[in-house]
């Protein structure tokens, strides 16, 4: 990242270069995006796939949305509360939530994903057991929540105490791994728009998750997809819901900053 930054400025003259070095000496400054003008995954999807996504009746993810909607007002746990007991109408209270997650949680002292947020709420406020990451009921809830932010730009806050978690996510993203010795950007920055077997490589933007994946024939969470990516480069994927993927998900959201939330997207 720094090398790229400097290289980009080298043509601009010695004075500018000096300024850049001064900025870097103060601790890196604002991070620069490798793809400053990102494109959603829908840009790389086939028209047939998009036809399913853009039709709210035909889009099978709406089966999950409806499950999530029912669960929203279904009381569970020792407190006898449902999500709606505190949060009321999800269309009001949950608008924009998906767009700003993952987010730093001051009480936990770390960044949490929307999945983890739901489970924290279940455990601490409802007295209900947490839902397994990427399980159907949890995906149903996050898909329902995500839909309330559809069309709103992704806008995560990486400043202040969240920054170290962002940096860890960035490190994970840029670390070569697996027998194929690839970093995330090997595909999603250096080769997007080119064919990988029958599909076009996307920029790896996360704005459509949770996504109905035609290959899996179900709604999948982002971290399930990340496991697939790591396995594809023949690496050993960290667990879903763990620290590595949570920080990576945070970094990915920042990469997609400004793209509209597309939940629930449909992809091959």
């Amino acid at each position, binding site marked *: 990242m720094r090398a790229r930054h400097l290289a980009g400025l080298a043509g601009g003259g010695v004075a500018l270069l000096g300024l850049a070095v001064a900025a870097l000496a103060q601790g890196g400054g604002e991070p620069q995006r490798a793809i400053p003008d990102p494109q959603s995954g829908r840009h790389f999807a086939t028209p047939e796939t998009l036809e399913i996504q853009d039709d709210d*009746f*035909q889009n*099978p993810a*709406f*089966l999950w949305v*409806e499950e999530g909607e029912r669960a929203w007002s279904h009381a569970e746990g020792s407190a006898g509360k449902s999500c709606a007991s505190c949060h009321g109408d999800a269309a009001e209270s949950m608008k924009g939530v998906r767009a700003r997650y993952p987010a730093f949680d001051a009480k936990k002292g770390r960044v949490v994903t929307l999945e983890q947020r739901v489970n924290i709420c279940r455990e601490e406020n409802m007295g209900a057991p947490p839902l397994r990451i990427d399980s159907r009921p949890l995906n149903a809830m996050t898909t329902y929540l995500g839909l309330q932010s559809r069309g709103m730009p992704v806008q995560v806050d990486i400043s202040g105490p969240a920054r170290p978690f962002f940096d860890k996510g960035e490190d994970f993203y840029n670390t070569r791994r697996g027998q194929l010795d690839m970093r995330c950007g090997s595909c999603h920055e250096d080769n997007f728009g080119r064919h990988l077997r029958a599909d076009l490589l996307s920029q790896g933007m996360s704005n459509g998750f949770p996504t109905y994946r*035609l290959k899996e*024939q179900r709604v999948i969470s982002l971290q399930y997809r990340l496991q697939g990516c790591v396995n594809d480069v023949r690496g050993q994927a960290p667990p879903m819901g763990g620290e590595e993927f949570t920080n990576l998900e945070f970094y990915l959201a920042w990469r997609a900053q400004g793209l509209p939330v597309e939940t629930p997207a449909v992809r091959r």
Partner: protein
Amino acid sequence: MAAPIGQPRVRLPASAKAGEIIEIRTLISHVMETGNRRDQEGKTIPRDIIKRFVAKFDGQEVFAMDLATAISANPYIAFPFKVEKAGSFEFTWTNDAGEERKSTAELKLA
């Protein structure tokens, strides 16, 4: 044990004119397990699919379909229908175990 047949979704126009051809659209949540897959211990996962879909209008069968293992999970079925009178649809999905899931919808004349 057969997986439960999920909640169906059905959509048709709120009302239609006599003589008009409308599209009836249905979607149902189901795993459509092919019977060709194995679990992590190598045991065959038994076949469990929606085997048949039937649409009746005022008790008379107007559309029926046999489904096969190559059909994806959560099958989406749409068919055209020529409107003659107002009435009620009854849709039935039947799985391998013979369990049924029904849904109804009313058609009004414009």
